[in-house]
């Protein structure tokens, strides 16, 4: 017999005063965006473009080769050539420039601030000054460190920073082109031929179960929202998030045990085995030749043509 108050319904309640609890929403929005981006990446990788139809192993080896070659280049024009090649390959593969840069831009501020910016000053890279920022005077010291008379931006420093940023940017462009035009599982399999198979298996399973756990997070949040009449205080929300993190951890641990049991039941004996779906046809040969050609032109140009010029 249900108690009589069930029939009475709930009285509207005044929402308590408290600070905004938007961080939970933001956290969930981030997780939703991750799923969205992963789905988007799969969509691009399914387009019928040139690179999408090229064997993953060939693509991986060629992109690693181009990135290593870029690391050995000491002049900007050959680096621009490799970058332009990556851009052209992506465009030929029906990847829009916006899509490519959307995934690659975030590397720039970090590399500039952490790696390139300090290198432009005469403290790191001595050379011809192009801009004087501070005048310390002769014999100035900062503790045990002896300071130069002036803090200047040097021509050599700018060139060196530009080279580093361009090199990293080209590497990122190549990597994004590869990951956008290759499905994650194909990329992992291609990697599995060159790195330890158990490592690849772990990565593949991590990627697989991230979505499962994100869905659990989403369901927890939806269930809470469905039963929340007025938002709680920040402290209450924090406690809720903490308890859910704990619950998620317990759940993921249980899932791990179940997955391992399922693997054992299906004959897994500790040695990962996967079907190799690699082929080397005219498309792969053409792509590999093109990459080798670009590498050769860039390296020769860098070492022979530009070596005598000053940049």
């Amino acid at each position: 017999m249900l108690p009589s108050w069930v029939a009475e319904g709930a009285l509207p309640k005044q929402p308590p005063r408290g600070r905004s609890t938007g961080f939970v929403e933001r956290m969930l929005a981030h997780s939703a965006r991750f799923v969205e981006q992963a789905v988007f990446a799969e969509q691009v990788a399914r387009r019928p473009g040139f690179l999408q139809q090229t064997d993953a192993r060939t693509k991986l080896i060629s992109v690693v080769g181009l990135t290593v070659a870029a690391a050995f280049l000491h002049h900007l024009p050959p680096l621009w050539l490799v970058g332009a090649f990556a851009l052209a390959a992506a465009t030929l593969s029906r990847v829009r420039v916006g899509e490519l840069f959307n995934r690659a831009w975030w590397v720039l501020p970090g590399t500039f601030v952490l790696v390139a910016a300090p290198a432009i000053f005469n403290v790191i890279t001595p050379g011809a000054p192009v801009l004087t920022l501070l005048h310390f005077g002769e014999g100035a010291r900062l503790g045990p460190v002896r300071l130069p008379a002036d803090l200047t931006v040097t021509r050599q420093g700018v060139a060196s920073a530009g080279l580093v940023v361009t090199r990293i940017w080209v590497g990122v462009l190549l990597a994004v082109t590869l990951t956008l035009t290759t499905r994650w599982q194909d990329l992992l399999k291609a990697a599995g031929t060159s790195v330890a198979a158990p490592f690849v298996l772990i990565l593949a399973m991590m990627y697989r179960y991230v979505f499962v756990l994100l869905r659990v997070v989403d369901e927890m949040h939806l269930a809470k929202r469905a039963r929340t009449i007025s938002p709680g205080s920040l402290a209450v929300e924090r406690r809720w998030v903490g308890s859910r993190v704990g619950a998620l951890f317990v759940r993921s641990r249980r899932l791990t045990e179940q997955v391992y049991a399922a693997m054992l039941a299906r004959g897994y004996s500790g040695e990962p085995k996967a079907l190799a779906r690699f082929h080397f046809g005219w498309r792969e040969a053409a792509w590999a030749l093109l990459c080798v050609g670009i590498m050769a032109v860039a390296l020769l140009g860098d070492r022979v043509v530009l070596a005598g010029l000053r940049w």
Partner: protein
Amino acid sequence: MVSEVFRLHDVVYGYPDGRAGLSGVSLTVRQRESLVVLGANASGKTTLLQLLAGLAFPASGRVEAFGEPLTEAVLREGPFARSFRQRVGVLFQDTEAMLFNPTVYDEIAFGPLQLDLPEEEVRRRVDEMAALFGLVPVMQQPPHQLSGGERKKVALAAILAASPEVLLLDEPTSGLDPRSQRWFVELAGELRAMGKTLVTTTHDLHVADEIGDRVVVLDEQHRAAADGRPRDILTDLDLLLSVNLVHEHAHVHDGIIHVHPHSHVHEHPHE
């Protein structure tokens, strides 16, 4: 002569937190039979299946498979461990845990690959299973993008691709819509006709009636309360009531309220 696939003798299993899983269960599973394990929630059905699958081990009592004691030591490595995993396929209740590969294709190929079959044979089996289960359009999709019914189909296809002699099916129809449930019953019929041994846990009396040659009932004290033919078990309403598989149902006939055990398998008497 019909040989035994499994034999459990006075098996007791307890969870680490002290809850009982099974309390003194003894039973045999014979080759080519379709045994249904019926029981209410938390009666020990899944635990029983895990013991048969060599994924859990009893605190006391004995489990034998194909005439050999099924212990952690023999399943760790060696020829028996390999042949056991080859001969016994397990469908987990939670397909999310069972489907751990990145795509449906890889999922179905996983079992045959563990058997070290030639690559062409693996591909042939995967393609045939995909066609049989209607999975061709989703072969390159990750399992998390599939519906519950599709996931169940992938899980079954993945087990069958390794062609086991014995199938341990944990709640195969839970979460399936009526059409998919019918599909499963027909599939179970085909598997029986092929001579496979099936052990299916369920609390669905319809399924037990349709696919079982024999039914074992677990009660809420985690013991085997009955073992017999489906007709005999499923018409014993007192038994089903005592193990919480049917419930007392009150309704009105001709202005008279009356109460009787209620199930959806057979006609019930109205007095």
